[in-house]
């Protein structure tokens, strides 16, 4: 009997009893196939697995995900219901999930574009990855196979879609997948551990490094020199994987061992330099301590990544000399612009509650999250725009619903009503829910 489903077949949803009609095939792999299906007017997708030896356990795990109902985060393309053939159909089994819209593309495709996303978009993509993983881990589940194959992004909104949710489960549960080599934690490659929340955190760090630094954190000169075409030719790629990602991994920017630095000309060298110190520190922790200490304490957790990526988003502005997009790094005053090499001045800064600082660069947005914390979709309250009359200077437009009270240094108290623009200069501000102040910078 055939083991795959074909267009035109009808299938029953086990939970709801509804009938779906199989449409065209949109994916195929070793495990099975993915087809579009119609449920009345609505389109969904069905992932259908070929029969395999451990089918019963696998099916039970997916059933458990279905029973949970809503996914922990909207990014997950969660199993909605199990499906079975209506009439005599193929062996094997499958599940229904939402159809991923075409606006989602593989993350590398976005990073490899000639016109690549802005720093703010990169930081947002990273944070969306973190939010999705945080929500999953907070419910006690782990993903187990986090890689670029399974996480897609909408470059316009930075929303992500996490695919292949069938490997999600609770820690200690039955494991059907060990991961994707380059993203796997060293202890899994060494056969000392199975995928878990802790190993997910390593995979997350690798993904974030790819998104921000545009390379693999363990692929440097030392790995390069182990490749050879002489003698017996290349070691097998599997041997290299086990050696450099499993038995003896070394971070390309390890502060105490420079043996595995990116090779000359590698783009990672450019990208790494332009990030603020607080970003580089957290990556360094993830790929030094985090490589060796496979615990929740040793690895960088989502809460830490969230803070770092929010702060990074707030640090974007542009070089006043050449216009290149840059980050403000409070720990490295006067560091050079990556594009024109001239030292960067201190930008105008909005100092917020809880020690947060928002660089008032063109395009920056002040949201309710800045004032009162909070999660979910942010509400934009202020937007930084170019000063209409003074090139190089900026204004902060009130795009929220309430007036701000401001006290510029040496001036009287003023009100900034909704829609009005405020020339950025040293001052104190009262936004209502929170107070803040602006320092003018030295640009």
């Amino acid at each position, binding site marked *: 009997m055939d083991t795959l489903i074909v267009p035109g077949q009808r299938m029953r949803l086990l939970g709801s009893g509804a009938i779906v009609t199989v449409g065209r095939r*949109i*994916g*195929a*792999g*070793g*495990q099975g196939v*993915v087809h579009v299906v119609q449920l009345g007017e609505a389109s969904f*997708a069905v*992932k259908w697995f070929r029969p395999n030896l451990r089918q019963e356990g696998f099916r039970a795990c997916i059933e458990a995900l279905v029973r949970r109902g809503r996914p922990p985060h909207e990014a997950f393309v969660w199993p909605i219901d199990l499906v079975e053939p209506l009439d005599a159909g193929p062996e094997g089994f499958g599940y229904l999930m939402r159809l*991923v819209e075409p606006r989602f593309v*593989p993350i*590398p*495709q976005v*990073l*490899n*574009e000639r016109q*690549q*996303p*802005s720093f*703010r*978009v990169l930081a947002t993509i990273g944070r969306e990855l973190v939010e999705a993983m945080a929500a999953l881990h907070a419910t006690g589940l782990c993903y187990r196979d986090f890689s*670029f*194959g399974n996480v897609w992004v909408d470059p*316009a909104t930075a929303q992500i879609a996490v*695919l*292949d949710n069938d490997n999600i489960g609770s820690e200690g549960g039955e*494991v*059907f*997948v*060990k*991961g*994707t*080599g*380059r993203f796997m934690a060293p202890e899994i490659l060494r056969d000392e551990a199975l995928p878990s929340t802790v190993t997910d955190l390593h995979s997350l760090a690798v993904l974030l490094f790819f998104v921000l630094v*545009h*390379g*693999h954190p363990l*692929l440097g000169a030392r*790995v*390069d*020199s182990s*490749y*050879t*075409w*002489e003698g017996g*030719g*290349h070691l097998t*790629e*599997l041997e290299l*994987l086990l050696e450099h990602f499993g038995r003896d991994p070394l971070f390309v920017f390890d502060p105490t061992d420079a043996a595995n630095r*990116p090779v000359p000309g*590698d*783009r*990672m060298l*450019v990208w790494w330099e332009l990030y603020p110190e607080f970003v580089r520190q957290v990556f360094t922790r993830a790929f030094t301590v985090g490589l060796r200490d496979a615990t929740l304490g040793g690895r960088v957790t989502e809460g830490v990544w969230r803070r770092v990526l929010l702060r990074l988003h707030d640090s974007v502005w542009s070089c006043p000399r*050449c*216009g*290149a*997009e840059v980050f403000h790094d409070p720990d490295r005053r006067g560091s050079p612009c990556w*594009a024109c090499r001239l030292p960067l001045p201190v930008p105008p800064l909005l100092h917020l509650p809880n020690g947060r600082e928002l660089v008032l660069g063109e395009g920056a947005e002040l949201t309710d999250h800045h004032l009162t914390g909070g999660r979910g979709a942010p509400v934009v309250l202020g937007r930084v725009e170019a000063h209409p009359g003074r090139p190089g200077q900026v204004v902060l437009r009130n795009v929220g619903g309430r007036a701000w009270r401001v006290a510029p240094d040496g001036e009287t108290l003023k009100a900034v009503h909704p829609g009005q623009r405020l020339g950025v200069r040293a001052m104190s501000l009262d936004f209502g829910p929170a107070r803040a102040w602006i320092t003018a910078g030295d640009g």
Partner: protein
Amino acid sequence: MTAHDTPTLRMPGGGISRRPLHLILLADCSGGMKGEKIQALNYAIADMLAQLAIWDRAQEQAQVFVRAVAFATEAVWHIPAPTPVVDLRWRPLQPVPRGLTNMGTAFQLVAEALAPGRIERRALRPALLLITDGLATDPPGRFEAGLNALLATPAGRGALRLSVAIGRDARSEALNRFIGDPSVPVLVADSTSDISDRLVVASLAVSRMSEAGADRAALADRLFGHGGPGDSIFGQDTII
């Protein structure tokens, strides 16, 4: 690309740091290829390159560079410099009137390109794709001499060697000797998806360790052996 970007935005660029994957095409332009055969050859290459370009952009492991040799009585570089597949526009080849099918001379040319020091250390194992109607007409000993020169280079020996037969009467004896692995079939020109999938799968460390606790050696065979059913790289169980 998106609403967030302005045309004036200056960014470091350069894409993801990836390992080079060299693909060298050896295309048969003998007189016997005229008509439908050369059209089939050009179609197969253009379609395969288009699929490789899509794959190239969408992943973080390898950057595909393409070169091409056109051979008949003599072999010449059609694309001499390694060219990123995403930048490549295939210029159709024409058959050489009364040109012979001397494969040995093409192997010699490729052997020079894969000589020690000519290919990056970090490059993935290169892929060589021979596209022909299979009727080698080399003078005695020349086919073997060319193939031996190719196999004498470590990169040539390590390369994935595939061939595509053009035409129903394609003979595969020469092609099988080029491939050097009885488990790898000669491909046919209407299976361009299969060709690009095989290139990618066999050249990369595609290391999705599906079965927990699976025997490493068996796994290595499955990952790095030639072909194998259902290894579609475009799949990886993601939705296209």
